[in-house]
């Protein structure tokens, strides 16, 4: 019996690779579909990926600018500070939520045809990643716009290094997305709980405020620093706002966190995927 199980595992592993090659077109179709359908029937279409962060940043700047903006010591440009945090948080929020629902929403297919199921959370994270990359254009506009004012952000080659926090963030979203997708199949409540969690996370991440300028309880501050989104956003801001190399501690911490999430997510997903059909 044990030997048989071992054999099965070997077959499964080689199947993983051949499946990925065979179904790579499915992955690109899922990504394409998500992006196309999201903005279909809206007048402005894909422009919403730019307009939405623009408008929400304006709202946040109006609401919090007066209070936190004045306290933002050491931040050269509060609006760009806000926009950086907002864009990265938004990608995390959107992609993990969509990955979470992806398996349940494709129940129709999963119940009828054999498909590698991880394609669904993966495809959703990738499609959100693409819209996120498009939305970065708005950041470029802001940087150019401010370059004519006294709040200009220095344009440095370090800006190219933002690719590092962006990749780490992608890995984090994928790992968390896989964990959530598996959990949501068995407990639908998780979707509602996660909504609340994301709201908490918005405030537990220094998006609208600057961590060092707040008079916070030491433990709360430590808690915020343990949040990998804090490390990733800090890295991103260091490159954009301060024109300098990011703190390497932030990189190692967030990278390790993301990889642990991916490993846990992949193991959970693989172990439970045969049972999905009984629950969706």
């Amino acid at each position: 019996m044990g030997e048989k199980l071992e054999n099965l595992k070997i077959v499964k592993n080689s199947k993983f690779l051949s499946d990925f090659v065979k179904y790579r077109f499915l992955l690109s179709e899922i990504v394409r579909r998500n992006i196309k359908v999201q903005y279909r029937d809206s007048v402005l279409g894909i422009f919403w990926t730019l307009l939405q962060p623009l408008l929400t940043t304006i709202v946040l700047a109006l609401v919090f600018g007066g209070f936190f903006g004045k306290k933002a010591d050491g931040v050269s440009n509060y609006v760009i500070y806000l926009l950086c945090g907002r864009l990265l948080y938004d990608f995390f929020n959107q992609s993990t939520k969509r990955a979470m629902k992806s398996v349940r929403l494709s129940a129709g297919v999963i119940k009828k045809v054999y498909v590698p199921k991880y394609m669904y959370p993966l495809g959703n994270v990738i499609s959100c990643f693409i819209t996120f990359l498009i939305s970065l254009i708005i950041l470029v506009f802001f940087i150019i716009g401010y370059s004519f004012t006294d709040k200009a952000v220095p344009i440095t080659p370090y800006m190219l290094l933002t690719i590092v926090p962006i990749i780490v963030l992608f890995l984090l979203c994928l790992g968390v997305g896989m964990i959530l997708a598996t959990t949501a199949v068995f407990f639908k409540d998780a979707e509602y709980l996660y909504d609340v969690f994301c709201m908490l996370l918005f405030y537990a991440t220094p998006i609208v405020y600057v961590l060092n300028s707040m008079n916070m309880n030491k433990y709360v501050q430590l808690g915020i620093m343990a949040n990998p989104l804090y490390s990733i956003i800090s890295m991103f801001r260091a490159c954009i706002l301060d024109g300098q190399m990011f703190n390497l501690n932030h990189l190692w911490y967030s990278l390790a966190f993301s990889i642990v999430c991916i490993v846990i997510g992949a193991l959970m997903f693989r172990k439970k995927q045969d049972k999905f059909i009984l629950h969706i």
Partner: protein
Amino acid sequence: MSNPAVKVENVSVVFNLNKEKVDNVKEYIIKLLTRKLRFTEFRALDNVSFTIEKGERLGVLGFNGAGKSTLLKTVAGVLKPTEGSVEVEGVIAPLLELGAGFDSNYTGKENIFLYGATMGYSRKYIEERYDEIVEFSELGDFINVPIKNYSSGMRARLGFSIATAVEPEVLILDEVLSVGDAKFKAKSEKKVKSMFAKGVTVLFVSHNTPQVRRLCDKAIILDHGKIIAYGEVNEVCDKYDELVKGGKK
């Protein structure tokens, strides 16, 4: 000479009936604490074994709840058997409930690619067959209209056209030959027969014994998850007809 295309060996599928009802944390914890989380086992398939040789066409007969759909799902690879193993040689095309992979916001054209991708085909492969699919589905200009505006017949016709445009080695038919109007029905039966001529292996589920006699050469009867008859199609169909009459008495 044995050359099996589908080999089903000692397959059992067991469902835990209660398990499916508990889908929120509160209920789960309460039931766990009060120890009411007892599972009733239900054997949808019980030690089923059979093989289909290449080019053979097997009909699966049985009353509602006999385990036919479960059997097809295990052969299609959607459902993993609790015990036993299923081996399938070659490309398998499930025609289970057509249109399962459609996105209703997508147009017919976009759905052809999405559906093809779901079945594991490449873009190039689908492009080569695109014209054939559109022509067979008789959708004409409607191919550029979102699927949500289609009638159920139009959807089914599109699904059937995509699923049969590819050249599978094993075909699973789940009462799909009753798609569309009489004209399309005749056309689809003709299409399936032309696939038979190319030597495709078929697993066909139906209640309709005349149709099974016409399309298959062997048949099995499932009852409560067990195979109670296996053999030449006419013998088995006679037996099934007798069972149906017996049930009516």
